């Protein structure tokens, strides 16, 4: 690849076209003064190939390349680089502002050929180097610091050798990996070696597992213990022997039981056969079954009931006849002429009550009347006179009563009004006198003023004699005052005349009213007179008696009421006498009121007897009818029963009664019941308990088996019992005896007691077991959880350690291999370049960490020592040689790299500069495109003049083109 032309539309301070072509084997020399933009041009070429990085992370928040090279004067921010590759001309166009990138071959857009994934990697593909590698090898900036710090050169070389874009060298990366292994944060440690975590996890896991195993082991032991506890009873020797003995005895008992059972079975079979025969011989069960007996007995009971009913009805008939006859006799013996009806009895009762009420009312009213008379006398009235007055005024009409009542009142009102009129006429007279007095006073004031006026007038006339001034006006005040006096005197008379007229009018009105009152009084007097003549008395007597009546009124109201009531009682009594006379037909004479009570009693008695006779008669008739019906029912029932007995094989002669028939039937029925009991009860029970042939065979087999078992096991059990202490001997003695249920029970109780004791021990052990189980439930899950946690943590730590150690070891191995290759290649190429430059710096060597050293005359100098020993120019040459070697190595000798060298001989003497230029021309320029940036035009003119082929150096001017 060779760069041909850079068209800069805006990049830092640069703008314009730069021709970079120098031809193979030549050098393009760009001569410019310092700060003219040479370094910016190198950055522009890098930017054209790789773009500008805008990632602040990479630049640690410093100004990014994208910001750094923004055009100083503004405007477009971009460029176009023309280059050739394998004979083809490519044009790279970049707009850094918009991010536009395009690669064209002629008119063909071949941008896609440079795309890897989402990234465009134009520089990488064209140069075969990453940006970092390109910057480190192809671009050699002026005054690079590598020689101020030789270790920095080694680091730069390592970085180029180790990573494409990382921050660390392989050694640093190995240190990071080792740190990761040493500073591991785990479950068992906060920060430490990962192997420690692995180890601790394993150890703790073992401990936890052991603890869990112990728990599990104990748990398993406990399970066995629990089972042992459950088998406790059966495992004790003594208990077992005792139980065996008991079993032996139980077997003996069972044998006896089985034998008894067989005997019972024989008995049951015999009884069964006997009953069968008896049942077959008795036919009563067929004739009288269970249903007939209660039915017939029911019919017999109903017949008895019918007979009892018949007798009862007959008794009732006789009783009714007797009651009727007794009543009739009694009725004939009473004193009445006939039998009173119910209404008559009721009416007579009412009259008796009324009579008694009248007598009581009259007595009460008379007592009240006497009391009222006493009251009148007490207030000074004679009851007789009062009665007369009452008679006089009893017939007065309401109008007359109003006249008498209002007369007195009107008269009093007229008198009051007349008195008031007189008073008003006296007041009017006094008022008229006051007016006269006022008139006199006014007249007196008028005359006084008139006199004063006359005096003033005379005084005025006198004054004219002493002065002529206004003589004509001197009498005027006197005249005026005199006129006022005249007016006042006159007005007093007029005022008196008006007041007198008013007073006279009022007096006239009063007189008119007084006359009207006289007329009304006269009219009243005439009406009173007319009423008095009607009542046949004088007016004065009338008025007097009316006033007395008025005074009497408050005391006579109760008297009048009592008098009226007495009159009503008398009238009632008269009516009762008339009514009682209607009883004459029944009684035989007109009864007096005093007889009423006795009559009433007689009436009631006669009426009751008559009712009793009627009721007895009605009962008799009904009983007679019912008796006929019941006689028929009894006859029908008897006929039916006789027929049914006949059907059941119990015939009756006509002279035999039903009782005899039923006694016979009961005997037959009792036999039937017994047969039924046998058939339905005893026989089935026997059939049920009688063993089947199979059962009997089994039982017989069991008898044989038990007998044999007893025979066989007894010696062994006797031996075992003999081995026991006292109880065993007792049991041996008991073995021969048949074991009763009671004995068996006693033995069981004793065994139960032993069992309880064992159960106590068992419970204690169970408590311990429970305690452990609770601990197990609590701790085992925690341990399992911890084991799981440790297992995961340990596995992760191991995986981490394995992975990081693998990475570390691999990096270490590769670093050694790579650095070895690099050191060898770099040293060889550097020494070749240095030789081409004609320098005598000695042999350059690189160790496995790419640290540079110089060997001069067999003496090795480290980089630091070489820095002190070498001049600046020698260091620059050495540096250039190293960088060229790096570029050559990275390009692998296959790709032509554009090498941009920024004033590499700035510090060299002329000879070394000429040697360096020759080396570039002869060794580098044939393989790589060399672009040399320098600022000393005269020096390079001289250098060119010293070269045999100065035209191989093409001098370019940046300022002219930009």
């Amino acid at each position, binding site marked *: 690849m060779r760069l041909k032309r850079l068209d800069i539309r805006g990049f830092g301070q640069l703008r314009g076209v730069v021709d970079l072509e120098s031809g193979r084997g030549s050098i393009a020399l760009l001569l410019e003064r310092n700060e003219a933009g040479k370094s910016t041009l190198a950055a522009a070429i890098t930017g054209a190939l790789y773009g500008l990085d805008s990632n602040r992370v*990479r630049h640690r928040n410093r100004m990014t390349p994208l910001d750094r090279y923004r055009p100083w004067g503004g405007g477009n921010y971009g460029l176009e680089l023309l280059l050739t590759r394998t004979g083809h001309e490519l044009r790279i166009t970049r707009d850094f502002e918009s991010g536009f990138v395009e690669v064209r071959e002629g008119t063909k857009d071949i941008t896609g050929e440079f795309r890897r994934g989402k990234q465009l990697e134009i520089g990488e593909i064209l140069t075969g180097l990453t940006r970092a590698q390109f910057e480190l090898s192809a671009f050699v900036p002026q005054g690079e610091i590598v020689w101020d710090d030789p270790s920095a050169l080694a680091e730069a070389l390592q970085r180029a050798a180790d990573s494409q874009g990382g921050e660390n060298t392989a050694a640093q990366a190995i240190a990071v990996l080792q740190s990761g292994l040493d500073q591991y944060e785990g479950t068992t440690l906060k920060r430490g070696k990962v192997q420690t975590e692995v180890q601790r996890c394993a150890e703790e896991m073992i401990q936890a597992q052991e603890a869990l195993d112990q728990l599990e082991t104990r748990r398993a032991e406990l399970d066995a213990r629990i089972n042992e506890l459950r088998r406790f009873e059966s495992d004790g020797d003594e208990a077992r022997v005792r139980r065996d003995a008991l079993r032996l005895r139980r077997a003996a008992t069972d044998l006896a039981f089985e034998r008894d059972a067989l005997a019972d079975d024989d008995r049951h079979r015999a009884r069964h056969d006997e009953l069968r025969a008896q049942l077959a011989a008795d036919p009563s069960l067929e004739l009288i079954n269970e249903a007939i007996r209660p039915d017939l007995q029911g019919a017999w009971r109903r017949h008895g009931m019918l007979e009892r009913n018949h007798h009862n009805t007959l008794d009732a008939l006789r009783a009714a006849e007797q009651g009727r006859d007794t009543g009739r006799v009694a009725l004939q013996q009473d004193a009445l002429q006939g039998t009173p009806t119910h209404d008559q009895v009721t009416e007579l009762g009412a009259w008796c009550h009324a009579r008694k009420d009248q007598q009581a009312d009259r007595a009460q009213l008379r007592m009240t009347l006497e009391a009222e008379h006493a009251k009148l006398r007490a207030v000074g009235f004679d009851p007789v006179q009062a009665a007369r007055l009452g008679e006089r005024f009893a017939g007065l009409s309401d109008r007359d009563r109003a006249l008498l009542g209002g007369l007195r009142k009107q008269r009093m009102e007229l008198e009051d009004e007349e008195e008031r009129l007189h008073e008003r006429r006296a007041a009017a007279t006094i008022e008229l006198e006051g007016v006269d007095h006022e008139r006199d006073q006014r007249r007196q004031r008028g005359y006084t003023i008139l006199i004063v006026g006359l005096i003033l007038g005379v005084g005025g006339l006198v004054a004219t004699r002493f002065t002529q001034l206004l003589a004509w006006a001197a009498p005027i005040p006197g005249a005026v005052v005199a006129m006022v006096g005249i007016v006042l005197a006159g007005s007093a008379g007029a005022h008196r005349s008006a007041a007198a007229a008013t007073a006279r009018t009022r007096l006239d009105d009063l007189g008119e009213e007084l006359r009207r009152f006289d007329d009304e009084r006269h009219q009243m007097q005439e009406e009173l007179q007319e009423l008095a003549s009607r009542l046949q008395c004088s007016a004065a007597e009338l008025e007097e008696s009316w006033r007395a009546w008025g005074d009497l009124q408050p005391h006579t109201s109760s008297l009048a009421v009592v008098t009226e009531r007495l009159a009503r009682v008398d009238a009632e009594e008269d009516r009762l006498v008339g009514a009682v006379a209607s009883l004459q037909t029944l009684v035989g004479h007109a009864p007096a009121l005093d007889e009423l009570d006795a009559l009433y009693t007689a009436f009631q008695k006669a009426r009751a007897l008559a009712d009793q006779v009627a009721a007895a008669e009605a009962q008799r008739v009904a009983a007679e009818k019912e008796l006929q019906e019941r006689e028929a029912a009894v006859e029908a029932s008897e006929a039916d029963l006789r027929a049914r007995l006949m059907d059941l094989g119990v015939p009756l002669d006509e002279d035999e009664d039903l009782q005899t028939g039923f006694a016979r039937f009961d005997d037959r029925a009792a036999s039937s019941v017994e047969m039924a009991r046998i058939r339905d009860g005893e026989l089935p029970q026997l059939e049920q308990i009688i063993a089947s042939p199979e059962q009997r065979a089994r039982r017989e087999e069991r008898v044989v088996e038990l007998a044999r078992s007893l025979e066989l096991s007894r010696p062994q059990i006797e031996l075992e019992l003999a081995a026991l202490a006292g109880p065993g001997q007792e049991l041996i003695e008991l073995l021969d005896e048949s074991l009763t249920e009671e004995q068996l029970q006693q033995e069981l109780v004793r065994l139960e007691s032993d069992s309880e004791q064992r159960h106590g021990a068992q419970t204690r052990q169970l408590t311990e077991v429970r305690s452990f189980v609770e601990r197990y439930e609590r701790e085992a899950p925690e341990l399992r959880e911890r084991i799981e*946690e440790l297992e995961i943590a340990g596995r992760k730590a191991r995986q*981490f350690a*394995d992975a990081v150690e693998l*990475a570390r070891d691999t990096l270490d191995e590769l670093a050694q291999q*790579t650095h070895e290759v690099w050191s060898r290649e770099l040293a060889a190429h550097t020494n070749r370049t240095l030789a081409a430059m004609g320098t005598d710096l000695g042999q350059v060597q690189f160790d496995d960490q790419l640290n540079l050293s110089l060997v001069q005359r067999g003496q090795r100098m480290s980089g630091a020592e070489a820095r002190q020993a070498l001049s600046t120019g020698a260091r620059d040459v050495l540096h250039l040689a190293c960088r060229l070697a790096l570029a050559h190595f990275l390009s692998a000798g296959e790709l032509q790299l554009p090498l941009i060298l920024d004033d590499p001989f700035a510090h060299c003497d002329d000879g070394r500069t000429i040697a360096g230029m020759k080396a570039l021309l002869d060794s580098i320029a044939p393989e790589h495109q060399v672009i040399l940036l320098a600022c000393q035009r005269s020096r390079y003119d001289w250098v060119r003049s010293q070269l045999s082929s100065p035209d191989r150096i093409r001098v370019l001017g940046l300022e002219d083109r930009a």
Partner: protein
Amino acid sequence: MAALRFLQISDVHFGQSMRGGKLRLPAARAADRMRERRACFGRAIELVAARDLDGVLIPGDLFDQESIDTDTLRFVIHTLGKIAPKPVFLAPGNHDPWAGASAYVREDAGNVRGLNWPDNVHIFAHDEFRTVDWPGRDTVRVTGSGVAFDRPSDERRLGRRIGREVAPTEILLFHGSRDDSGFLQADKSTYPFSSQELLGQGFAWSALGHYHAHQIIQDATGRPRAAYSGCLTASGLDETGPKGALVVEIDDARTSVEFLRLDPREVRDLECNLTGASFAEMAEERLTNALAGCSDQDLARIRLTGRRAIGLDLGWLDRFGRDRFHLSVDSSQLRPDLDLENWPDESQARTIEDRFVARLRALGESGDAELARRAMLYGLDALQRSTLDLRYED
């Protein structure tokens, strides 16, 4: 029939440790969650009184294993006994089978801890199906069976008709794997069944346990006939979504199923792609965005995927999300932002980095690929950063 209303919970898994698995709960948080599980259970049972329900159905896995600590067992027994005489029907599941030292075995049957279940709790501690009455409801009968082992079983117990006396309202408790819903893992089936087989049994309602996700099975008319209530509380990374209990109401005409969220937290399994996040703040923003919609009180696991930019600092990840109840970050799937696929082979490699990648790639192809992959990632991280701030172990 008067409506039958009951609570259905399952898969409570008392005794299950929450420290394992991919959630990686630290000990203190795991303890918090175990307390919360008890509280949720208590709240669920209190619903019976609060809503005047007729009882409780628990179709399995009340406990996580056969052996359960005494304190938890006492708590469960006390809590269920509080609602007496309201009945609790309990069918042991594959995690808490009734055989052996199971907590379901009564004292008289050999439980050495002396703990007795209250009388209102009916445990179907038998292998075959049995039917019992629902106390206080004459027309309701409950059929169930218990799992007697803790290993997978392919027996199709619902493939044949369950013999029983017919009742107006029949309820089934069953712990098994529905295998026609795409849930089933082949080696983890427990009494598998299809919805067709279940509906063919003709139960008015089937309370199902085993799956930890809530799921309802309807008949042809769309009426709900069975449901997994799902686990009561979330404890694993795959138990996402709200967790709680069902309140079911059945009458002659309809069946209603109400899901009640009881677990205050949810499990969130999130992914955050870091490709293109070139600096720490941008990466942190990506993580923050990925956690949007996730409560601080949730249990979150976030998987970092994509490519990690060269030089991107992720050392702050340890401190990220510390104010949350729980957040774990899994970086095992994160890859360096290098085109490892197109990396030059060893013959073309010039740098150590090139050769390192080529060497480990070859190693992975010939041997332990996972080890080589992690070694490559750690090596590249070491070349690019000053610390190993990520872990690539699962």
